[in-house]
């Protein structure tokens, strides 16, 4: 276990170093002069501004030196300055990371909370109307892009029914939940949840579809297993046979891909945040591309990639701890 831990952490570090290298070399990769390009996106730059930028982006330095100086900056907490917003890229991003994580985690939660009962029901009621409904949901969910789901949700819940706001963000739901619990007043919580519901559902739809399929098919497989008959033969009631004996086994493949899904969901935030004007890294990254704000581009891509690598690492290590069978295979 310890050896595995060390290997896994080292390889994650290596990936991060590679990302830093690619990101730091951005000025070398851009076709043409990067600072001239930036001027196009930020009119009114002075020659002095441009000189500072050249220095900051390491335009005239060799690749390796650019890399070491960028890496040095990371250790000082300095990711350069946004030319457009005229403030520290690190600060700008730190403000936005929580919103992105909250959106992705909410979507992940939804992906499980919806797919689990739906997948189980489809398997237990195989061939009935519920099963067909589940199949249709999963066919659509896999095929329809998330931003289109977002648009459809806005049309239904904002335009038609006028239940939910179509854009915006009023602060963290988790924080609101905590405060609502302390004050025993749900109104603040609901006010914030209204904003996250549609983005989270659009983001989660694909994962819901995939998980429903997966849970259905593993459940169908598990239902035929001998250990369920054994449990029945011991006098275990049917409900417990399904909810304890069957579900625990059906969950293993699901839990395995759910961790990896968090990554896909984080990727999806790049699009969904732009549909719902959600103030996260994804929206910042796309805006910075429009602004040709290269320091901000560098920083947002770097942070997104690091969040991604770290989450994968965490998921992988958690699995080693919880599943006895994975532990067993490792020995």
């Amino acid at each position, binding site marked *: 276990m310890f050896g595995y831990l060390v290997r896994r952490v080292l390889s994650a570090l290596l990936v991060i170093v590679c990302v830093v290298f690619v990101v730091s070399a951005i000025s070398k990769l851009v076709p043409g002069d990067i600072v001239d390009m930036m001027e196009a996106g930020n009119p009114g730059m002075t020659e002095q501004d441009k000189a500072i930028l050249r220095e900051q982006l390491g335009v005239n330095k060799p690749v390796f030196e650019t890399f070491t100086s960028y890496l040095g900056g990371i250790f000082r907490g300095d990711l350069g300055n946004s030319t457009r917003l005229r403030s520290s890229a690190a600060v700008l991003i730190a403000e936005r990371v929580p919103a992105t994580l909250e959106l992705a985690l909410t979507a992940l939660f939804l992906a499980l909370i919806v797919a689990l009962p739906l997948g189980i029901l489809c398997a237990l009621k195989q061939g009935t109307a519920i099963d067909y409904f589940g199949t249709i949901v999963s066919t659509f969910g896999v095929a329809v892009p998330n931003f289109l789901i977002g648009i459809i949700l806005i049309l239904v819940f904002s335009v038609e029914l006028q239940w939910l706001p179509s854009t915006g963000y009023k602060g963290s739901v988790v924080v609101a939940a905590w405060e609502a619990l302390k004050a025993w007043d749900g109104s603040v919580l609901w006010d914030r949840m209204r904003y996250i519901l549609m983005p989270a559902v659009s983001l989660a739809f694909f994962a819901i579809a995939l998980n429903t399929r997966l849970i259905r098919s593993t459940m169908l497989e598990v239902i035929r297993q*001998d250990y369920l008959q054994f449990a*029945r*033969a*011991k006098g*275990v009631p049917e409900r417990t046979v399904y909810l304890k*004996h069957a579900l*625990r086994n059906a969950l293993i493949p699901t839990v395995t891909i759910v961790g990896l899904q968090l990554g896909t969901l984080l990727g999806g935030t790049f699009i969904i945040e732009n549909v719902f004007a959600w103030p996260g890294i994804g929206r910042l990254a796309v805006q910075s591309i429009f602004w040709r704000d290269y320091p901000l581009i560098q920083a947002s891509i770097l942070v997104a990639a690091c969040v991604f690598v770290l989450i994968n690492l965490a998921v992988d290590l958690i699995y080693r701890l919880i599943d006895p*069978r994975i532990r067993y295979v490792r020995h």
Partner: protein
Amino acid sequence: MSEPLLSIENLITRFPTKRGRLTAVDGVSLTLERRETLGLVGESGSGKSVLGLSVMRLVQPPGMIEAGSIRFAGTSLLDLSTDEMRRLRGQRLAMIFQDPTATLNPVLTIGEQIGEVLRWHLPSIGPAELRERVVEMLDRVGIPNARQRFGDYPHEFSGGMQQRVIIAAALILNPALVIADEPTTALDVTVQAQILDLLRRLKDGEPETAIVLVSHDLGVVGEMCERIAVMYAGNLVEVAPADDILDDPKHPYTVGLIASIPRLDREVGALNPIPGRLADPVTPPPGCKFHARCAHAFERCRVERPVLKTLVPGRQVACHLHD
């Protein structure tokens, strides 16, 4: 004479299939006395496992028991509610399955899987007592270091040890009837003998337990059992004390089965498999289901199905040759 422990009357169990209804158990009647060990023998597909599952009422839908009655210790099992039946399972009626690796739930500890029996049938039992009883039972079935192994997962045991765990779960509440469905088929030959030995010892230690040993291996059954019932294509074809059946089989199918047991006193390679295949259970042939494979079949066998008749007290056979 008191009532037998188990009496099955004209039991029919069917499974709907795409081709039609498959009759797995086709009008079986059978009785079992207290403490008796009965061997239930037949080829795979003969319906012997389904018969065992029918007694447990564990036939899974779409399969269902369509007719007949099963009386167990004075109660009619088919008239019990789902929950009443559930309370009998594990407590008065127990089952041991064929493949121990598939029978144990891979994600639960063996302590949990045995303890579950106690938890559902003795709701007032505390965790410490539960653990104590499970460890004691593990010890009785011959698991070394039982106390340490309580929290182990099934994959940490060998096949033979897994089957011991299953036996422990089946016998922990001293059931009156244990149905052992091919308990040794999936195991190594040396381990097979140990498991059979264990079953015999456990049974001898109990004042009440009867065993139905389901097997395709007449050799195994002959050693273990007092009485043997031979099943063919959903019907019982011969029921008799073990010694009688082995020495003097009456039904041609039983004769064939005995001839196909590999024996040390016969030349190697002189195995005598019964020619032909099991009758189609969806559209069985008219008359005796065995007639197509029977060397002695005559006209009556092709039109009239023989019923189980008593030849001498204790010996029954379903064959026109013995009319």
